[in-house]
């Protein structure tokens, strides 16, 4: 356990009884959200931070679960004296609705049929997530978020917060995000979904009833995704053309280190992730287009927003490259919002947002420190 760790953390379940009308038109009459909190809410309830997770993330963002060796997925960023400093801030993170780590999702029992939802679970959009996160906020008695922070799909949720509930958010940090997906982004997502749906164990998404799961398809989807999270530079540096064996075998077994790495990533992923959730998350990404969806009222909302924005991108990210972040900056500039932008030199590709990087952490720390003055 690192020196500035939060230590052991225990997730909790919030059972939300308020029906949620989804963008698709369907309604979830009740649902559970699994969440963790770090630090403590101060007296005037002015130090709450919401962390939004990305495609494969969950509520376990920092600290350790008893009996597990690996900490939460953003443990380097969140903790005592870390950029998101739990000595000062009260951090909330949840497993998004439709997830597979304890919140209501495709693996849950549908109370109306008493069977697992499977592919009958409704498609949840970024806007639906934000609505459900607001329910959790009320449940926890939090009047407003000092910060809403997220990377990638999490960054999109942070942006959506500033459009949807501008009066409830003081600062928005969107890292390695995009204002909407490109055709290329959607194409990658579609191949991932096809890989899952072509798996013989898919059974139209109702695989759990049959006691199987489309692991091969999901592993392929993850392998493909993983390539888009890394940069050419980082793959070269990490694997080059290194072989697992001393010579070429002239067959189709795993020979190069990169092949072995991807295989391992795919196999590891399927042990903890549900294929329907992966389908849903990629669809939610594809659908995200707040600027197009923005009715006049949403634009007005944004203009009402007193929120400060920090937008961060990474030079080697080709999934959501700097130019996509600049589109977000442009939208905010055109609406005369308080926005800062930093483009971090990093080799890590899209995944750079999860890695330790001196400049990146300093930028986060500087923005958070200054915005946090007065607490």
């Amino acid at each position, binding site marked *: 356990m690192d020196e500035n760790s939060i230590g052991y953390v225990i997730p909790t379940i919030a059972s939300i009884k308020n029906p949620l009308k989804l963008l698709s038109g369907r309604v979830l009459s009740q649902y559970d959200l699994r969440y963790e909190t770090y630090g403590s809410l101060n007296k005037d309830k002015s130090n709450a931070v919401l962390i939004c997770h990305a495609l494969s993330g969950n509520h376990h963002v920092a600290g350790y679960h008893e009996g597990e060796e690996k900490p939460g997925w953003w443990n380097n960023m969140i903790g005592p004296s870390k950029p998101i400093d739990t000595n000062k801030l009260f951090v909330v993170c949840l497993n998004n609705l439709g997830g597979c780590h304890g919140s209501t999702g495709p693996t849950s029992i549908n109370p109306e049929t008493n069977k697992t939802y499977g592919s009958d679970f409704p498609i949840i959009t970024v806007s639906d997530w934000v609505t459900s996160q607001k329910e959790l906020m009320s449940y926890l008695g939090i009047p407003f978020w000092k910060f809403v922070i997220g990377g990638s799909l999490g960054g999109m949720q942070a942006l959506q917060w500033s459009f949807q509930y501008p009066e409830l958010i003081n600062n928005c940090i969107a890292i390695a995000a995009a204002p909407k997906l490109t055709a290329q982004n959607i194409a990658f997502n579609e191949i991932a979904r096809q890989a899952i749906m072509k798996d013989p164990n898919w059974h139209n998404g109702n695989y759990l009833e049959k006691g199987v799961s489309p692991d091969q398809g999901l592993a392929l989807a993850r392998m493909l995704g993983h390539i888009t999270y890394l940069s050419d530079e980082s793959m070269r540096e990490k694997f080059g053309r290194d072989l697992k064996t001393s010579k070429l075998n002239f067959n189709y077994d795993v020979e190069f280190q990169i092949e072995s790495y991807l295989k391992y990533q795919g196999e590891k992923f399927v042990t903890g992730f549900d294929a329907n959730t992966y389908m849903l998350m990629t669809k939610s990404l594809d659908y995200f287009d707040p600027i197009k969806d923005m009715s006049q009222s949403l634009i007005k909302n944004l203009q009402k927003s007193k929120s*400060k924005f*920090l937008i961060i991108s990474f030079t080697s990210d080709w999934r959501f490259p700097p130019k996509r972040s*600049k589109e977000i*900056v*442009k939208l905010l*500039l*055109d609406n*005369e919002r*308080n*926005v*800062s*932008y*930093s*483009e*971090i*030199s990093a080799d890590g590709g899209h995944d750079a947002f999860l890695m330790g990087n001196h*400049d990146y952490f*300093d*930028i986060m720390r*500087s*923005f958070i*420190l*200054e*915005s946090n*003055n007065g607490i």
Partner: protein
Amino acid sequence: MAFRKDLLLISSWIKPNTKVLDLGCGNGELLKILKQDKNISGYGIDNDIKNIKLSLRNNVNVLQMDLDKGLNGFELESFDYVVLAQSLQVIKNPKELLNQMLRIGKEIIISFPNMGHWSSRIQLLTCGVMPVTGNLPYAWHDTPNIHLCTIKDFLKFCKDNNFEILEHSITDNNQKTNLLTKMIPNLFGKIATFRIK
């Protein structure tokens, strides 16, 4: 940190409650003081990550961008003032940048070190070496300053490009004017500041 004296003059030219874009904003001190004293809103632009951090610590909006790549993201006349303080000499294409500044700003304010100052002239004339001065401390081979000019050069540049000079100030190193900087500015002025539209 002491406030840069040349920025005081620029801030005195900026009217309250306006919108300012500060190119090459450094640690953001100009915008910080303008926010405090004149309730302006605005953004700084810098390409050095150190300056981005410092500006954030000064609670100033700052955008990490390369000025040599242009200002295409900004709309026509979206700012009351676009400022370029002591950075003209590092810009790859000054004419292009000034045209862009004039597109997005109603007025622009530019300051630069005067290469026509007697101390520079003497170094070249007597020692035969490229001038190295307090304002321009770099050796010829290791300098970010690629487009140095004199006040006379700049006046011709404005005339050639139809830039209208609204106001100017030629000062010594202490940001003061004296009889000499008034009489023969191109010989005795250290810093030149122009307001242009």
